[in-house]
Each structure stands twice: as structure tokens, then as C-alpha cells.
């Protein structure tokens, strides 16, 4: 039986010319696991929101949606509330109450169930999810990943037959995301719940999915099994490839008649089956994996120098940063990777002069910023550092992007003409033209990121600090961001980035450092760094390391394959 049947669904937002959805036809069978993918703004979220009447956006709708054989509009709110579960992106925003047990019961309370039934349902769900130990906790004590699991559990307590998830792991770190997706798969497999989800982390989701629906410009362009979808995308030469897992991207770059690999394991077998020159791995140096040319060595001292830094948030708390030393040369792009809670963001705040270590030395642009006697010089140095926070929304204060950009120049003594010139320059750099008249909150995640970056850059910093800039961004936005950062470093700006995104660091950073237990364990150029690690490395490297140990990025592997076929 079909869970959903969508026939010729079109939708246009009010005051827009272009439809957000164009003649969508989609059938979802009971118990299927469907992944919807596409670029930001391709209409994925709009489509998902049509699957539940209370969440459907206002606008002009045409076409029909059937839910379990009946028109969706005909099933009442109570039925829909119980049988269609919806998980959104931000874990914090979805939690309504202060206690875990109350949150789990929230939906059941709305349905008007009695205390005894709620008690049973809540107990069942808490046990299924293994969250019984948090049952009496305050939700504020939970981590982001735990909060999202709680959201899922409190929806599953209503026993829905369909679960719709709109980028549920966008705000989570990789470990928490894998955990969450594992639970979603468990729900699908053990409870037979139909799953419809959009997701950026296709690496983990594709192998779980029964079908992949690829959307572009409001249309469904592919609706097939993951393997076939990969092959179709290759045939179409569509740029959506950038969103696909590494094995699929490598597959697309190499000529072969073999079926498309989805997981790293598939990818290894696929590589083994390729007629690769048997002696390829004997000459690792010949695998075309040169480091990018080192930057011309200037006589300038390093822009950032930390010496044996110790920091803790409170006297009685454990040290957050322990014995940290690092040096970043002028114009370098320095990427810090590492797990959650290892002190990466704290280290970034110390460089930015926001937090003050209790031991050690911080030299920024040659100036010791901890010295009390040099308060003026310190102020000047700190004015040349800019930090982009994890959530770019926190920088916006005005009604439009343009006003917001001028706002940061408000305190300066520039003439109107100079200001306009500066704003124009920075807009050209960050590709904001066309978005200037919009409200910052109406932009997509990637656009917000660029607008915030533009704002930060107007201060003309010598040092740019980025905290998780790729969080929740799709592949296209990441490439744009990388392009902007490249232009900046070419101008001599020093960039320090903290990230969970190993792939991004491997492709674009000059130096990668692994943060663990409050300090840097090792640092090196990306090729040397990642090819030396066996777990903490890119998917491309994990897939190809038995043949091309030095190939780290997708391009490396593709090139190595082509050269050795």
C-alpha cells in the first residue's frame, strides 16, 4: 500500500513568479526509506512540508496529495498529528518543555491520552532509544545530538506510520549525526516506519536508502535506487555530483563499466576491479599527489604565535586548553580538526582575544596581547582580528543585507563614496550581488554565511577566525566559500578555521592540525597529515589508501586512477 501518492503537485510562494515545485509526481510505499537530495533552494523542504497539512506553507498549490489512499486534506488534524511525524533541522528550536519526560509526553498530551497510556508509551520509547537514563534530566543538560534524539523519540512516542525528516543532522557533529542516522535506520527496519528525509550527509544516508529522489529547480530529475541514481547523474553530467558521497564522485571521474559504488567498502572493491597498473602502489611519489606549492616565504614573523597556553573557564573546572603551542604564518590557511569538546573553539577564542589564558604567551602580529602594559597596542592588534561565529545570524542587525554591511562602517571616518566602494568590493568578493535588498534572515544558510563573512571582512582584518564555517552547507556553497578564502589568503590574510569537515580541510587548507584533549597532537600539510592517519582521514583516502596511499582528496584519487589505468 502507498503511504503517499503525489500527483502533479505544483506550488508557488506568494509574490514569487517562479514556482518552487513543478509538477511533482512521487509515490512512496509503506515502509520505504526515501532520501530526497538536491542543492539548497531546490524545493526539497517545500516538498516535505507539503506532506503534513499544518506545516504546508502559504501559496498557490495545484495537484493532489494522497495519504494512505485518501486525499491528505481529508484526514483531520488529529490523525495527521499522530500518524505523520516531522523532525526539523534545529534540535533546540523543536524542544518545547524543560524536562525530558515532559517533552516525550508532549504529543501524547495533545492527543488527549490518559496518564497510564502516556506512561507506557513514554517508557517504551525511552527504552527503544536507550535514553531512559536521561528521563528526569533538564533538556538544557543535553548535548545537541542528544536533543535531536529526544525530538525523534518524542515524535516516535506518538507511533507515526510515516516519519519525515528535514535535514535532521545539519547542526550535529559527525559522531552525533552517525548515531542519529543509525537510530532512524533502526526505526525503519524494526518498526517498519516509512522514512522520507532530506540530508546533506549522503555518505551515511545513501547506503540506508531504498530510493533516492534528486531534485533540481523544483523538479524531480531522478527517482531511483542509490546505485542507479549515481549512474544516471554521471550520464547527465549534472553538477549535483558535488553533493554525492566520495565513492560516487570518484566513480563519475573515472571511465569504467562497473556498477556505481556507494559506500567506502563498495568503493574499495570497485577500485580493486579496475584494471589499474599493478605497480601503481610501488611508487607512491608518482601518484600525482603533490602538495600545493608552498607560499613564498616572507621575512615576516608568524602572524599568530601561541606558546604553552593553559586555559580553564573557572577555577574549579578542568582545563579546557592544555599546553597548546601553535604558529600560523602570514597568509596561511590553517585548519584545526578534532572531536567535539576537545577545546578547538576555546583555542579560537583565545587567539581572538576574547578569552584570556592563565598561563602561557599569545603573540598576535608580533605583539604580546597578554601584557598589561601594552593595552593600547593590544586594542589595535585585536582590531585587526575578526571572528566569524558558528551561527552567522548572530551578526545581523538591520532590515536588509545592504544596510547591515553599511552598519559596520558606521563608526569609521570614511566618506560616503569610500564606504560605497568598500561595500561594492566586498560584495563582489563574496558574491552577494542580487541579495543586497533581502532581509538577512530570509537568506539560505550558505548565503547567510557569505553575508556574515562580508560584514566581517569590511573591518579589513589581517587575521580571520572561522568557527565551523561549513556546518549545514551543501557542496556548492562549500566550493564558493573555499574560493573566497583562497582569494583572501592570496591577499595575505591569515585564516584559521576550526571544523569537523575533514574533506574541506583536506582540499583547501595549507596546514591541518589535529586537536585532542586540549592541545594539538600533530600538524602537517594536508596530504602528509591525512595519508598518515588511518581512521581520521577523508573518505576518498579510506577508499583508495590500499592502492594510492598518498591520495587524499577526491581529485587526487581520480587523477591517480586516470594516470594508472
Amino acid at each position: 500500500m502507498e503511504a503517499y501518492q503525489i500527483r502533479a503537485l505544483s506550488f508557488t510562494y506568494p509574490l514569487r513568479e517562479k514556482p518552487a515545485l513543478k509538477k511533482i509526481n512521487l509515490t512512496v510505499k509503506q515502509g520505504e526509506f526515501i532520501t530526497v537530495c538536491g542543492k539548497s533552494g531546490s524545493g526539497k523542504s517545500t516538498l516535505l512540508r507539503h506532506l503534513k497539512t499544518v506545516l504546508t506553507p502559504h501559496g498557490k498549490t495545484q495537484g493532489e496529495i494522497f495519504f494512505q489512499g485518501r486525499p491528505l486534506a481529508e484526514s483531520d488534524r488529529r490523525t495527521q498529528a499522530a500518524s505523520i511525524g516531522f523532525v526539523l533541522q534545529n534540535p533546540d528550536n523543536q524542544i518545547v518543555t524543560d524536562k525530558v519526560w515532559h517533552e516525550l509526553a508532549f504529543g501524547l498530551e495533545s492527543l488527549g491520552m490518559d496518564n497510564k497510556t502516556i506512561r507506557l508509551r513514554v517508557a517504551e520509547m525511552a527504552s527503544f532509544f536507550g535514553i531512559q537514563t536521561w528521563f528526569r534530566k533538564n533538556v538544557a543538560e543535553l548535548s545537541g545530538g542528544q536533543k535531536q534524539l529526544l525530538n525523534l523519540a518524542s515524535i516516535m512516542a506518538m507511533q507515526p506510520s510515516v516519519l519525515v525528516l528535514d535535514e535532521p543532522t545539519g547542526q550535529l557533529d559527525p559522531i552525533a549525526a552517525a548515531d542519529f542516522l543509525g537510530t532512524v535506520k533502526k526505526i525503519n527496519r524494526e518498526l517498519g516506519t516509512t522514512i522520507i528525509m532530506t540530508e546533506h550527509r549522503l555518505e551515511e544516508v545513501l547506503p540506508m536508502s531504498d530510493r533516492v529522489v534528486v531534485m533540481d529547480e523544483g523538479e524531480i530529475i531522478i527517482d531511483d535506487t542509490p546505485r542507479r541514481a549515481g549512474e544516471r547523474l554521471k550520464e547527465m553530467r549534472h553538477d549535483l555530483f558535488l553533493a554525492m558521497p566520495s565513492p560516487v564522485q570518484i566513480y563519475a571521474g573515472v571511465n569504467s563499466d562497473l556498477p556505481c559504488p556507494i559506500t567506502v567498502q563498495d568503493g574499495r572493491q570497485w577500485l580493486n576491479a579496475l584494471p589499474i597498473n599493478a605497480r601503481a602502489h610501488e611508487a607512491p611519489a608518482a601518484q600525482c599527489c603533490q602538495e600545493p606549492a608552498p607560499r613564498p616565504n616572507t621575512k615576516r614573523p608568524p602572524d599568530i604565535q601561541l606558546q604553552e597556553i593553559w586555559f580553564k573557564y573557572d577555577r574549579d573546572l578542568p582545563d579546557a586548553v592544555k599546553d597548546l603551542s601553535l604558529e600560523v604564518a602570514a597568509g596561511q590557511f590553517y585548519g584545526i580538526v578534532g572531536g567535539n569538546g576537545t577545546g578547538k573553539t576555546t583555542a579560537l577564542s583565545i587567539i581572538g582575544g576574547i578569552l584570556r589564558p592563565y598561563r602561557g604567551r599569545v603573540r598576535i602580529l608580533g605583539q604580546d596581547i597578554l601584557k598589561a602594559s601594552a593595552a593600547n597596542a593590544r586594542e589595535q592588534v585585536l582590531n585587526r582580528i575578526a571572528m566569524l561565529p558558528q551561527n552567522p545570524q548572530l551578526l545581523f542587525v538591520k532590515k536588509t543585507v545592504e544596510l547591515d554591511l553599511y552598519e559596520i562602517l558606521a563608526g569609521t571616518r570614511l566618506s560616503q563614496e569610500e564606504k560605497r566602494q568598500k561595500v561594492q568590493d566586498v560584495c563582489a568578493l563574496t558574491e552577494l550581488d542580487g541579495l543586497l535588498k533581502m532581509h538577512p534572515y530570509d537568506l539560505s544558510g550558505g548565503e547567510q554565511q557569505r553575508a556574515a563573512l562580508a560584514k566581517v571582512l569590511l573591518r579589513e582584518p589581517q587575521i580571520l577566525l572561522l568557527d565551523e564555517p561549513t556546518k549545514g552547507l551543501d557542496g556548492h556553497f562549500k566550493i564558493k566559500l573555499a574560493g573566497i578564502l583562497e582569494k583572501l589568503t592570496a591577499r595575505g590574510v591569515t585564516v584559521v578555521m576550526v571544523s569537523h569537515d575533514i574533506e574541506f580541510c583536506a582540499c583547501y587548507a595549507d596546514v591541518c592540525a589535529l586537536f585532542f584533549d586540549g592541545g594539538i597532537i600533530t600538524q602537517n600539510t594536508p596530504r602528509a597529515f591525512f595519508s598518515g592517519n588511518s581512521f581520521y582521514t577523508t573518505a576518498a583516502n579510506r577508499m583508495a589508501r590500499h592502492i594510492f596511499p598518498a591520495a587524499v582528496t577526491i581529485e587526487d584519487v581520480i587523477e591517480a586512477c586516470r594516470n594508472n589505468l
Partner: protein
Amino acid sequence: MKDAFSTFHPVVNFTYFTAVLLFSMFFMHPVFLGVSLTCSFLYSTLLKGKKIIRFNLLYLLPCMLLMAVINPAFNHAGVTILFYLKNGNPVTLESILYGLAAAAMFMAVILWFSCYNAVMTADKFVYLFGRIIPALSLVLSMVLRFVPRYKVQIQVISTAQQGIGRNVTNGNIFERARNGLQILSIMTTWALENAIETADSMKSRGYGLPGRTSFSIFRFDRRDQTVFGAMLLLVVIILAGAAAGYNTMRFFPSLKLPPPDAFSFGVYCAYLALCLMPVIIDLAEELKWKHIRSGL
């Protein structure tokens, strides 16, 4: 030591504190005041450990003495004149004693309130008032969720602004005020924007459907019934004493205690039992635990 009295049903806890607080406030009688003060001191020490003793001695005791001294300086009623002040006003024994009694009453009430705060946690309060007005329980619960969340968020915003050189610690007073306001403005926009998603999550989970129930993890079990019954009995005895006029004394113009007899003694015992109830429960629980352990 873990407090056993707080594991009782919120109704029991709440009724108890309402009773002892009201009795402490209205019964100006040396025996009642003494009992209430001693028991509240014992229970707060039990709940919060030795720290609270220092706090009491350092702050509450001087405060109490001060009240006892100030009262006769302003209140000159009473027949037993001890001496005259320089301005000719008399200092009377009655006003000194009244000052002491009022100070003891204040201290007892403060101590009982500190115990109340430790026992009646927010979720118990939410539960109780949710019984009376179900919509309020959800609102309270949401407030308890959002207030700490906004506090954290203000900190995050302030750090983000500091990262671009805008903070309440930068610049002159006008710039600081402007930056502070800006943080508030960002906070408001952020809160409103994110509340839309919260509303979606609530609607999606059926909020607004008629016939909403209120789930709770509390159960009024037999233990609660026993203690609640005993408590009500004691309260009735004490109220009977109050009706008979045993529970207060006359301070002005002259001191007059109600006559001591068997019934008044019974009322005093009932009040002692009521005030000591949490301590007795805690000790009984502790003894039982030790007994069970040693029996193994």
C-alpha cells in the same frame, strides 16, 4: 544525606510548607515560636549541610538581634518601664519581648522558605499549578525552558559581537550602550525567528487539539496518604488550639500567656510533631536503611 521528605508527592510537600509558614507567621507565642525556629533550623541544616549554620550565625542572628533592639526604640507601649531614653521616651519590657518574638518569627519564616525552595523544585510547582489550570502548567514549563536558553544565547551573541570588535566592554560609554542595545536587538530578532520553528514543532505534534491532558510522573501512593492524613490531623488539632485562643499571647499593654493546661500541652505537642515531621521522616528513613543494610 538525601532528603526523604522531598520524595513525597508535591501536594504533601506544598500543603506542609503552607501550613508551617502560616502558623509561624500568625502564632506569636513563645512555645510556638521556639518550636518553629528550632525545627526550621534543624531541617534546613539537614537539607543544606553545615554551610547553612554559618550563614545563619553570620547574617540571620545579627539581623534578629538588630530587630529586637530597634523595636523598643520606636515602640513605647507596655506597662513595665525599665528606663527612660534621653529624649524622655520609656523603654518597656513588653516592647523588648515583642521585638524578640517578631525577630524569631522572621527568622523562622526565612528558614522555612529556604527549605521550601530546596524541596519544592520547579517541576513540582509546575505540576501543582498545572492541576488547577492546565494551560498554565505548559506555559510555566516553557518559561523554565526558555529563560535559561535565552541567557545562554545572550552570552553567545555577546561573544560573537566581541569577535567583530563590538562589545559592552569596548569603547566609550555611548558606544558601549549602543553595543549593548544591539545585542538585545539581535537577541529579539533571533528569539522571534526561532520561535516560528518551535511553533511548527508544537503544531506538528497536535498542540491546539481539543481535550489536551496533562501528564505527570508523580503518584499519590499509600505512603503519601499516611503522611498526608497525619499532617491534616495535626493541623486540625493546632487550629482547634488557635480557636480556643491557646496559640497566641498578649504583649500589650501587659504580657499575658494563655493558661497552661492539658489541652494547651496537647496543642504544643501537635505543633512540635508537625514542625519536626520532615526531620522525623528523614531520620526514620535513615534508620530503616541502616537496619536493612545491617540485616543483610
